[in-house]
């Protein structure tokens, strides 16, 4: 090889050393991966201070000890450490948390955002929170977002026997495709933003600690115009899920001739249509559920399932579905908040008709709008043949 060629190789070798990594890289094990972030309103902030000094936010960052989590030895005592920061803005809290942590904080794997009750009641703070979370792309729009009673920080700080990290718990909860979808509607940050853009109304799944001190996700927080309207119980949430066609793996228990009969819905579909018979517009919600009779035992031989009796059971189950959905409709009409998206469906399917309702939908229009439920139950498997 000539001298010139050797000289040409030198810069190439040099480049191989220089271009193999970032000059300011931070190794993964030198990062604090924030798996859950609890956002609360700081109730003790001083309103007399200038607005940029008012520490209106109270954020609790949960920093997991990755070594401990993966079963390795670690200098830390706990599997997670919680740091609460009071700050004037979310960005300012990140700046402050960096002064309290040994490693760089990262949100690239954040699994859950939990919002406390007070921040949900404060329209400006809540809207500001959503705006900030989506402004830069630090937090993924696929992050689950949940609401809780009281302070979200207190919920994340507490122990949870199944999984000490609430973020991991939430991720596993909603990623589990075999879990029945029945009591809470999972929401991503992105889907909440989409719903708020479409109708100004959304529901957030509710995460609470129950009496046994374990985490439970059921029910929801009803939000309208970035403000908490009220809490929805699990039955209302189930009605909403029925109307959205998202019910899956849900058992329905009915009293059939004095014995419990359980029908498990494997899959459910919903179709909302509108018709105008007799000069009055009404919504017609067709709900088709497919499932099996998963539990039925009777000592009464006359009550054993025959084809005629299966028809009776179907009618009984259809009444049960109808009652559950009517509960959700009644709640939405009492609160006068169309979280079932009847108005949105009307706008999408009958935009000209919607113009007549649009102006008074939020005052009297929705409250007085007739909605009919037409459930259909398909029993695929009775579990026994007679």
């Amino acid at each position, binding site marked *: 090889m000539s001298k010139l060629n050797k000289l040409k190789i030198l810069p190439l070798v040099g480049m191989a050393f220089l271009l193999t990594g970032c000059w300011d890289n931070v190794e993964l094990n030198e990062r604090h991966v924030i798996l859950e972030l609890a956002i609360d309103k700081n109730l003790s902030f001083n309103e007399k201070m200038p607005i940029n000094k008012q520490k209106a936010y109270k954020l609790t960052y949960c920093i997991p000890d990755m070594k401990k989590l993966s079963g390795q030895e670690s200098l830390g005592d706990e599997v997670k450490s919680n740091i609460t920061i009071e700050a004037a803005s979310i960005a300012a809290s990140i700046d402050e948390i960096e002064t309290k942590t040994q490693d760089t904080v990262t949100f690239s794997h954040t699994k859950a955002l939990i919002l406390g009750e007070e921040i949900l009641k404060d329209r400006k703070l809540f809207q500001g929170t959503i705006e900030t979370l989506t402004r830069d*792309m630090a937090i993924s729009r*696929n992050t689950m977002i949940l609401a809780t009673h009281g302070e979200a920080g207190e919920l994340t700080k507490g122990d949870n026997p199944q999984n000490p990290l609430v973020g991991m718990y939430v991720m596993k909860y909603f990623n589990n495709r075999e879990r029945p979808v029945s009591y809470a509607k999972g929401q991503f940050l992105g889907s909440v933003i989409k719903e708020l*853009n*479409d109708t100004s109304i959304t529901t957030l799944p509710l995460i609470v600690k129950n009496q046994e001190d374990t985490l439970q996700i059921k029910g929801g927080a009803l939000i309208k115009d970035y403000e908490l309207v009220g809490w929805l119980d699990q039955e209302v949430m189930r009605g909403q899920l029925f109307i959205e066609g998202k019910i899956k793996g849900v058992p329905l228990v009915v009293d059939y001739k004095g014995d419990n009969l359980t029908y498990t819905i494997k899959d459910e579909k919903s179709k909302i249509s509108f018709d105008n018979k007799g000069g009055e517009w009404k919504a017609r919600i067709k709900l088709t559920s497919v499932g099996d009779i998963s539990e039925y035992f009777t000592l009464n031989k006359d009550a054993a399932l025959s084809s005629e009796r299966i028809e009776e059971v179907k009618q009984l189950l259809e009444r049960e579905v109808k009652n559950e959905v009517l509960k959700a409709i009644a709640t939405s009409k009492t609160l006068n908040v169309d979280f079932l998206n009847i108005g949105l469906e009307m706008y999408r399917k009958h*935009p000209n008709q919607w113009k007549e309702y649009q102006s008074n939908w939020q005052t009297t229009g929705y409250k007085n709008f007739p909605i009919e439920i037409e459930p259909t139950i398909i029993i695929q498997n009775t579990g026994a043949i007679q």
Partner: protein
Amino acid sequence: MFSHNGKISVSQVKILLILQMFNTGILLLPKTAAHIVGREGYVLPIIALVFGVAYVYGIVGLTEHFKGETLVEFTPKIVPKGIAFIIIWAFAIKLIITAGLELRMFAEMISRVMLPKTPLAVILLSMLLVSAYLVKSGIEATARMAEVLIYFIFIPLIIVILFIVFKADYKQLMPFFQVQPLAIGKGAFLISLSFMPIEFMLMLTGLMEKPEKAKRATLVALVIMSVIEVIVILVTFVGIGVEESKRQLWPVITLMQSAQFLGAFVENQEILMMTCWVFSIFMYVSSGIYFVSLIGSRVCQFKRENVFVLPIIPLLFFVAMLPRNLAQVYLYYMNFQYYMGVWFLLPIPLILLIITRIKKVGGKYE
């Protein structure tokens, strides 16, 4: 494929044009479409095709009179040399400004999504120097690179889109047929400006092995690009919603961020889109540098085409660094595209074509 004869094939032209059109505009497209006509924005690229076909007929109609010649050679045959000089240099300046702003938008995006701590100048210079290296080897090398990169750009993109379409909310597109025809017309014209790289055909036709197939190649690239644009707008609308498409600066990146992958172990998937798009910007900037360099060489009648490649780098860098911030570069980019984008797409080629036919100059009449 031809070897080292400075000519490119018909399929290479198609690929080059597709990649050049798949530039920053594609990331902003759903935002523009949503702003103008709302949820029916996906129809705009189809109607924009009408404008696109007019651009193709104007440009290729002109160049097919002068086989083997570029704008530099045939313009002085059509108009007086002074005017020809102005037209040629105006085209070169336009290419420099467009490529510079494109480069800056690219750097802003990379800085925001991938390299927040890296200075903009470093990102810009890296891209410029790599592009210059490619361009140094001429149009054949650029075309061959495009042939390789097209797979790296579109295969990951198709995979990501497939993940989105199965979970998308198609009701976002309802109600249908609610938009005013006037808004559609205005929107289609604006969207047609995303076909701006067609103007490269003023130079590229002269470098084709079979220039008689230039019109067909450009039309095919145009139709493919329209279909890609329709898909990108549709998927963005059903993925993140029409209102969010209006609000977000980079709705396509937001869409990629919203995509859910099975098992949820893949995160930060927007990087996939960024990677595809970096290749595409690379092709656009390379072409910009190449054609400006080619104009310089041919005007000065230099034998080598790449003499001006390195001197152009500081010019592009200067244009890219001129805007003070993202808001300003966005404003400059949109305004430049809106006010200056169309000139070399239709009015100038059309005027030159009319004069060509009146004066009966060019190969067809000689």
